[in-house]
């Protein structure tokens, strides 16, 4: 029985040390503040999601057109606005993103 209690005590000590690790490793941090997305970073993240959605929608449209689910007429009517939307999303993210997301980029 004693060995069981000793083992339990050892485990408890190991667990406490592991839980206290962030404080033991960094006893006097310059900042203890939890990372938080700044409003600008949130805006950029929303734009990045919008860009990905717009590019994925274009890809889907191309694929649906090639597989016959979207007629030529519907394709022509939809592809222009969708390209504009994707371009707007890329522009809003800045020139670096435009390059990164371009077909050759």
């Amino acid at each position: 029985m004693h060995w069981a209690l000793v083992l339990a005590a050892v485990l408890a000590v190991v667990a406490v040390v592991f839980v206290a690790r962030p404080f033991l490793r960094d006893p006097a941090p310059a900042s203890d503040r939890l990372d938080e997305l700044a409003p600008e970073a949130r805006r950029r993240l929303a734009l990045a999601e919008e860009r990905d959605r717009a590019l994925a929608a274009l890809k889907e449209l191309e694929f649906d057109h090639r597989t016959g689910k979207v007629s030529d007429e519907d394709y022509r009517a939809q592809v222009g606005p969708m390209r504009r939307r994707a371009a707007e999303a890329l522009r809003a993210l800045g020139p670096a993103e435009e390059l990164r997301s371009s077909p050759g980029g």
Partner: protein
Amino acid sequence: MAPLGRAALLLAFGLIAYALVAGSYGAWRRRRRLALSAQNALLAAFPATLLASIVLLVALGRRDMTFVYVWQHTSHELPLPYALSAFWGGQEGSLLLWLLVLTGYGALAVWLNRRSRELMAWTVPVFALVGSFFVFMLCFVSSPFHMQPAPVDGQGMVPSLQNPYMLAHPPMLYLGYVGLTVPFAFAMGALLSGRTDERWIVATRRWTLAAWTFLGIGQLLGSHWAYVEIGWGGYYAWDPVENAALMPWLAATAFLHSVMIQEKRGMLKIWNMVLVALAFNLSLFGTFLTRSGVIDSIHSFSQSPVGGWFLAFLGVMVAFSIVLIYLRLPLLRTKTKLESLVSREATFLYNNLLLVALCLTILWGVLYPVLSDAVRGQTRSVSKPYYDFFLHTFGLPLLFLMGLGPLVAWRRASLRSLGKTFLIPFAAAVATGAALLALGFGSAWPGLLAYTFSAFVGASIVLEFVRGRAAAGSVFRLVGRNRRRYGGYVVHAAVVLLAIGIAGSSAYQTVRERTLQPGQSLTAAGYTLTYHGLTSVKGPNYTGFRAQLTASGHGERFNLNPGMNDYQIEGPSNEASIYHDPRTLGDVFTKAQIVKGDKIDLQVFVKPLVNLIWVAGFVFVIGSIIAMWPDAVEQRRLAARYAAGAAPAGI
């Protein structure tokens, strides 16, 4: 041994309680080290729970009757695999399994997403909130480590649980039930942190799919167990506990579809939160049903003190979900609207409404007897016709939508192009329906409709692969580049097989029953079964009899041996004998009872196409694996998105 198990559980309790309290405070006050420390506590709770589980497994393996739990659920004669399966055969053990899976999932999910600190700061306390309930129950209400002076032998295991399927069915269900905690914890964590972007969806996409797959497979294994072991000739009885597993699966199915609309169109953020909360709370409800003793079911544990606790916790979690979603409504509202009622997203929406409607009607069927008893004091039951009616009402349109959805383009589809893509599947369905009608299948309209709609869905899936292959160049390239879509289609094919199997084996089954003496025969659906007499059997912990039958029909000759086992401690159990006919993909299912001497009462069920249900399980797993398989290109894109998104302003 038991003190070690108790100590491990107390340690887990301390760690999880700390993760809840310190994690919530750290996230609220934005304290980095405290949030990390709470995260570590959640990680450490898993090995502590694992140790407690190992202690119980060792006790079960050794048939250590000083453990009350071991004494209640095993005996010295019980074979080792079944003794170990008693881990989930009783209430305390199954609560421990819940906690083990929860802490395991929690630790892995937290570890994999540890860099996303803002989201994890609130996700950890939500995991801990759920975990704290289970660990509290195990420590203070329903412990598997109660001791007693060792009796001579245990009370044994219910005979129907002594079946190989019981080694896999409950763990699979638990992996599914508990797995739904992961998307719930991340979704609630996202709401608490105010991060309603898609980060939580990206983090939990595969977790949800895995939980949904486990839950689906768990139910199929359970159905097969009921079919071969319980011996009533069926595989699904609309038992409340069976329904309890089906409901979260339906809600998760709806979520898996609607979340795609959020990812592709940025819509349905509120609806997705509602579905995640619904699926999780239904999984808790299922656990409550099994443990409270409020319903009478083959699966449920007897009346126990945990019911009230469970009900209170369920109430807390439902209230928590509703209040949180309500408070965050302004963040969840989106400007994007549905462009057309004829579009892929619209069909997903219709499918969602039907799935949720089916789920809620099943919920009402489960709740009504309980509420009727509680409010009016009248015992009422909701039986098969109620469920069958709603299964036909919602299930058949769902099947149809499953075929229609892939044919419709995203955003909007003109009726002309839809008509063109619709033509081949529609023609296949009409031809199938007409041929079946001519062959006499009109005797059961739901069956005929199920076959016809299945032909429609099957043709639309084949068409999707054929057209996709032509566009992509090869099937491997096609599937490799669109794993979720084509994995989904394979899952749809599994549902088609399931629908055909269910329709065939229920709408067109033949049942015959007759008392036979040796030498007499019975005929059912073209099979003739001749009874020759009884033989006795003996197993490690039972004796029994088998009726000797020879059978012929549809070009096959085979033997069947239905009978009964009488377990020394646990009592009698039916032993069905089944012949799987490779030509019809159906079964000849027999069960026998001794009437007097060697005279038996023989029941025969001929169930056409029933084996497609089990084949569907394999196809379902293949489809799920394809859909879950990581896509390196997509992962790089998402990593770049969140790395860029998380970067400080100005970069």
